[in-house]
């Protein structure tokens, strides 16, 4: 929801390592992050702080997952990938490694997907050259 970003960020994990020099806290094992309706599940999360504020979260897993309800009248958006990077200020999630986004039964996949949380906008990118993963979209027809 639009005011998700003003809500506290809650984190639970099996263990954690705090490095005050770099401002990075690494959470490991069944990591669950919630902030309002946003939810990130991962095997490992690096949480970056600047002047005590959380400004970036990188989640990795097989896959790591993200879900959020963009607004009250919209369906929940789900994203999956081996790596999710949440940029708090820009309110974007960048998904790489078998990146896939599901939105109201529509599916997007590609080498890299950038999901803009405030506009609920999905930008999918293919990989370079022939070997790169191509962008694929499955758009479900609207029921009449």
């Amino acid at each position, binding site marked *: 929801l639009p005011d998700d970003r003003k809500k506290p960020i809650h984190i639970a994990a099996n*263990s954690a390592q705090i490095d005050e020099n770099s401002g990075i806290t690494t959470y490991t094992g069944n990591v669950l992050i919630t902030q309002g309706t946003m939810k990130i599940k991962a095997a490992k999360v690096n949480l970056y702080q600047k002047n*005590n504020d959380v400004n970036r979260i990188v989640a990795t897993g097989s896959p790591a997952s993200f879900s959020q309800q963009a607004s009250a009248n919209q369906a929940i958006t789900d994203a999956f990938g081996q790596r999710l990077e949440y940029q708090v200020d820009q309110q974007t999630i960048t998904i790489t490694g078998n990146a896939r986004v599901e939105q109201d039964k529509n599916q997007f996949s590609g080498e890299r997907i950038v999901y803009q949380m405030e506009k609920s906008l999905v930008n999918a990118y293919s990989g370079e050259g022939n070997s790169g993963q191509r962008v694929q979209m499955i758009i479900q027809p609207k029921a009449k």
Partner: protein
Amino acid sequence: MLLNQSKARVAVASILLLPLLAYWIINPDDVQETPTQSALSQGADYYLKGSKVKEFDEQGKLKATLSAAELTHFPDQALSRLLSPSVEMQDEKGTPVTLTSKTGTLFDNEDRMTLDEDVRVTHNPNMPDASLLTTSSLNFDRRSGIASTDLPVKITNQQFETTATGMTININSRTSDLLSDVKGTFYVEP
């Protein structure tokens, strides 16, 4: 004449003191041992009140200050029991760190001590990014600057609060490991 007067005075004094003597004999326990006497009777060889030990490194720079309201040394156990111990030190970047608790134990010939009951580790006190760790018992190796506990801990500062069970803190390198059951809440700037 003079002799009779002094005999009379001694008799009167004895009569006055007799009840006190009798009370003391009947109720010896009521006479409270002072902490010093009870410590000494348990094998302490020396006892300090309001002690402060300053430790310097090879370059003569103040490394740490260990103080305690009371310190009682027990040679047989090769340790000292501390009341209200406090350790003030700095991490590698010169950031002040203070460890306090209600009681503690300082082990002879080792740089090890334990802090017990209402243990508080304050990092960068009086600063906006000050953080406070609380737990109920902490082992602290003063040489390596590593503190550890197996018990529940809570870390708080203006922006976040984290709880866990079991922790290792390397005060010098400013890194910590939260060993299990980690839960954190980060408050976002409005």
